[in-house]
């Protein structure tokens, strides 16, 4: 496998009882590339992402991250791989019982035992500054708006300087302006930190901002792969219909 491939998914199949969600799905993501995964709700986009991070086990296929087949790793080895991956959840998944500071310092305290309290505090403040929310450091998640939660979730995901970022619907539930702000923030952070990313979304505006390349999942298969402009200008009736709705929404 070439060194430039950060993620390689080979013939991935996943079903839930009788429901076939993914069948022989193969994708590759190159270093510093931003891949966007499109698809209708329930098309298996999030399942694909959760298989890549090891939260779900596929029924068939292989997943390579930096040339390591994560399906053959022990939990200890998988955790080593995970330390280099950030994951932004759809609902942000901030720890309710912790303040913003504690949410951000939690992974640092766990993985960087040599860091002093001062270094952790500095890193937390620097990362909050990146998402323009340094003032929220002592707030509880329940005191934050949806957009702020996304930003803090993003800050928590990047605080360990991951080389690969996975975004699960990063702009869902946000108004168009905040959605655009988050998308631009994601792009800026990726450029600044030189990260590779896979983003699952059905938000065309978000995809147009962050995507270098896109795939479209339909009926458990990759129905399209290419640049975002090619996808939106496709003559396929299904894609035309899908994106016409997205454009109206935007």
């Amino acid at each position: 496998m070439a060194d430039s491939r950060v993620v390689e998914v080979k013939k991935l199949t996943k079903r839930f009882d009788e429901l076939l969600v993914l069948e022989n799905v193969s994708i590759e993501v190159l270093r510093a590339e931003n891949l966007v995964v499109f698809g209708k709700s329930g098309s298996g986009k999030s399942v694909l992402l959760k298989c890549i991070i090891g939260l779900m086990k596929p029924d068939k296929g292989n997943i390579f991250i930096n040339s390591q087949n994560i399906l053959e790793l022990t939990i200890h080895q998988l955790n080593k791989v995970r330390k280099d991956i950030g994951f932004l959840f759809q609902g942000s998944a901030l720890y309710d019982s912790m303040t913003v500071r504690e949410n951000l310092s939690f992974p640092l305290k766990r993985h960087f035992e040599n860091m002093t309290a001062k270094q952790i505090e500095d890193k937390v403040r620097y990362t909050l500054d990146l998402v323009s929310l340094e003032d929220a450091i002592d707030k509880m998640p329940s005191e934050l708006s949806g957009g702020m939660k996304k930003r803090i979730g993003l800050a928590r995901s990047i605080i360990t300087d991951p080389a690969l970022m996975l975004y699960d619907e990063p702009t869902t539930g946000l108004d168009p302006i905040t959605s655009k702000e988050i998308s631009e923030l994601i792009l800026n952070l990726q450029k600044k930190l030189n990260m590779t990313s896979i983003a699952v979304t059905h938000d065309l505006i978000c995809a147009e901002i962050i995507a270098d390349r896109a795939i479209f999942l339909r009926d458990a298969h990759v129905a399209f792969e290419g640049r975002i402009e090619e996808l939106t200008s496709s003559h396929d009736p299904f894609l035309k219909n899908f994106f016409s709705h997205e454009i109206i929404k935007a």
Partner: protein
Amino acid sequence: MYSILLLFYSSHKNQFSMKLPQHIYGRRLSYIDYIYNFFATLTGLTIFNWEFFKQAFTPPFEISEVRKHMDELGVKTLGIVSITGFIIGLVLAMQSQPVLQRFGAGDFLPGMVSLSVVRELGPVITALIFAGRVSSGIGAELGSMRVTEQIDAMEVSAINPFKYLVVTRVIATTMILPILTMYVVIIAILGGYLAIIITESMSFQYYQSAVVNSVEFGDLIPGIAKTFVFGYIVGIVGAYKGYTAEGGTEGVGRASTTSVVLASLLILIFDMVLVKITLWLWPTLG
């Protein structure tokens, strides 16, 4: 049947619970479904226990987290167990006083109250109150973390959520319940004294010496020892129900409610077994 289910379950152990449908294709659950659910819960709980013992004895030990939970649980339940303990002692003495006097055994009242509280009522009532307050709390908290993907977030951050969330809470409940029970026993005995002095005069020194003379060390140990088991039950059941919750807010509510029911039931069953074992090991206590 249980072994077959266990084997089946082990091979499908992605989580610790199997899908437990409330309705299947629109029809109500049949008796077969209930039996299946019962064995699924039992099997899931067995595996969960096994996982606990595997992880409890491997580092890191998360001591500060255990201490934090012990503090929280102690503070959370201190008020309610104080009131309950005091009322138990008071009511027990009020109810027993006329009966003992009828048989000319009024002098035995301090001994009877203290022995009842030390050997049975104190540990069991405290455990049941603790289950109602703490098991449901753990079930709801972990259930909420599960359905809002906070547990997944921990897992993808390469942090062991089972150790951080489950092991620490179960150790905390196991350690704190015996301490609470000893406190409740003292409060209940004081409640008994209050009931006595309402109707007759008795000095506190006399009451205290009557209690100390009637309660032997052998009475105290089995009563306190079994609270370690009860504390473990409260923690593990709440954690299991919460950790395996699914189905949004409804699932969280279900986790919270079923935690209390299952924990209370198991406390009573284990109490019966432990009393039998105690009497078998120390026949002189009988």
